[in-house]
């Protein structure tokens, strides 16, 4: 058989209903209650696919029941010296804010795309 594929780290991302801002799901393993956080570092990271699916199911259920977020889905992240970093540049921009007007908002904080 081929090489063993390492599972990617993943987090659940969504938009908050009230203001549209990007949020991340934080929930302890086995918990039925999650919280939506504004910073990627606050997200619960799934290091295998089973945990990722558990988080996603929790996020989707919360979105349906509480109607507080829109369209949760999983994104891949990697751990770097500076912290978590989405592997796709689209998601990096989503997590860190626009790469323009770097005087404003969360993009005003240190970034690296």
């Amino acid at each position, binding site marked *: 058989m081929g090489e063993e594929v390492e599972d990617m780290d993943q987090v659940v991302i969504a938009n908050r209903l009230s203001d549209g*801002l990007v949020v991340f799901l934080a929930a302890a393993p086995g918990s039925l209650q999650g919280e939506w956080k504004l910073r990627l570092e606050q997200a619960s990271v799934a290091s295998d696919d089973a945990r990722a699916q558990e988080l996603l199911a929790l996020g989707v259920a919360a979105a349906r029941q509480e109607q507080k977020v829109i369209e949760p889905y999983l994104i891949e992240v990697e751990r770097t010296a500076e912290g978590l970093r989405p592997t796709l540049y*689209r998601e990096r*921009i989503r997590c860190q804010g626009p790469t323009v*007007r770097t005087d404003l908002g969360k993009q005003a904080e240190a970034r690296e795309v």
Partner: protein
Amino acid sequence: MYHYDEYDHALVQDRVAQFRRQVERRLAGELTEDQFRPLRLMNGLYLQLHAYMLRIAIPYGTLDARQMRKLAYIARRYDKGYGHFTTRHNMQFNWPKLEETPDILAELASVEMHAIQTSGNCIRNVTSDQYAGAAEGEIEDPRIWCEIIRQWSTLHPEFSFLPRKFKIAVTGSEADRAAVKVHDIGLIMRRDGAGQAGFEVIVGGGLGRTPFIGKTIRPFLPKEDLLSYLEAILRVYNQLGRRDNKFKARIKVTVHETGAEEFTRLVEAEWLQIKDSALKLPKQEVDRIARHFEPPAFRVLSKTAPATEARIARDRDFAAWVRHNVAAHKVSGYAIANISLKPIGKPPGDATAEQMDVVADLADAFSFGEIRVTHAQNLVLPHVERDRLPELYDRLAAAGLAASNIGLISDIIACPGLDYCSLANARSIPIAERITERFADRDRLELIGEMQIKSSGCINACGHHHVGHIGILGVDRKGEEHYQVQIGGSASEDAALGRILGRGFSADEVVDVVEKIVDTYLAHRNAGETFIETYRRIGQDPFKERVYGAA
């Protein structure tokens, strides 16, 4: 300019009240996103990469000082202190909260503005020439006709669920500043042999995945028949337009697949049925609308402008501003002043709340309170006394609004791209910012002369890259940003689609490629030739050779 009547006021305010209730239900969890999405889109509220985005219509690009101040207020109070002018006479706010959007819409309604029909498969905001009512050689003020079209198309029951969105542009001058040939319908005012004013009707232009230059289906349409003829076109489209494939649903594909001749025959046959219906425009009605667009009380001024001439003679920067940003006015002693929203190294088309307030004040002080927005993402003060230009320039400069580059290489059209737009493949704004930085030198700018760069972050082509002299298109290549470059397009009277140069480039390479294209033009041009003229004379090969190296 046009002012709402009771009917308009009631319509817009009712919509705000209705949307307020819908938002409440959504926030209370009584409506799901699937149920709510069409409702918010019908009120101009999109969800983008980072937040909601509110798209506000600026009908045919005309705005007064009071409305501009309101936009500034909204930017400051409800957003992050800035807004973005798009290529279709819209203002987009990038950070509105859902819970505050009904308040924003109520603020807008108080100054006769709204976000209705800025989304969906309906007839969108009608666009026009930013010099309307001021341009030398204009046949008639096209905004009269834009307003007539706006009233007819607003909540038109038959055309609220077209196969796809529908965009109309109108110009009253021979010079096309509204890119009419790349709209679903483009209307150019013409005179017939007897001197009567009417329209050349162009159908099926468009950009996006399958770009087309529109086809003239009627060289001359009498004015009073405008609405019946538009209705005939829309009816034929509504019947034949494809609904099986979103990418083939625009009227450009209908015209292409049906054939322009057959399409014209169908329109004319339909028109015969309704030509003399209630849609025929009675003269009193046209006159009533026209009264809203009566010229302001121009003063009788001398042709000479001594203060302006003296400043031109001694101030090189001011002279450059006048040369590039000021256009001839139809009334003696007046001038049209363009305000460039393309300062070096900044996002094209963005304005801060402070700048919006300054523009509103300057409109009051210099231009009868009138402001225009352009499809090239700039602003215009349409009626400025020529001899007060130095004073205006100084006040613009103090607000960082005196970039002297209208029509030059740094006057770039760029869509929001991947910095904001959820459909994007790649970023558009940072490329534009870097190009303006590369070509910041005034002498070089002047040497290059007229040049339009247009950049889109995906094939939807909101940045009009197909019709840029140089067009840049962001694509996704194996998860990385990548750019295709094309050259030879034009959005003016001589509208043409650019041709792709060859393989694409990384974000790091693309500014160098633009520079190589410019250098090739400078090396080959004959005296007095613009980029597009040189390109048309020598073709693509010399540019290819320079960019990719000899084969």
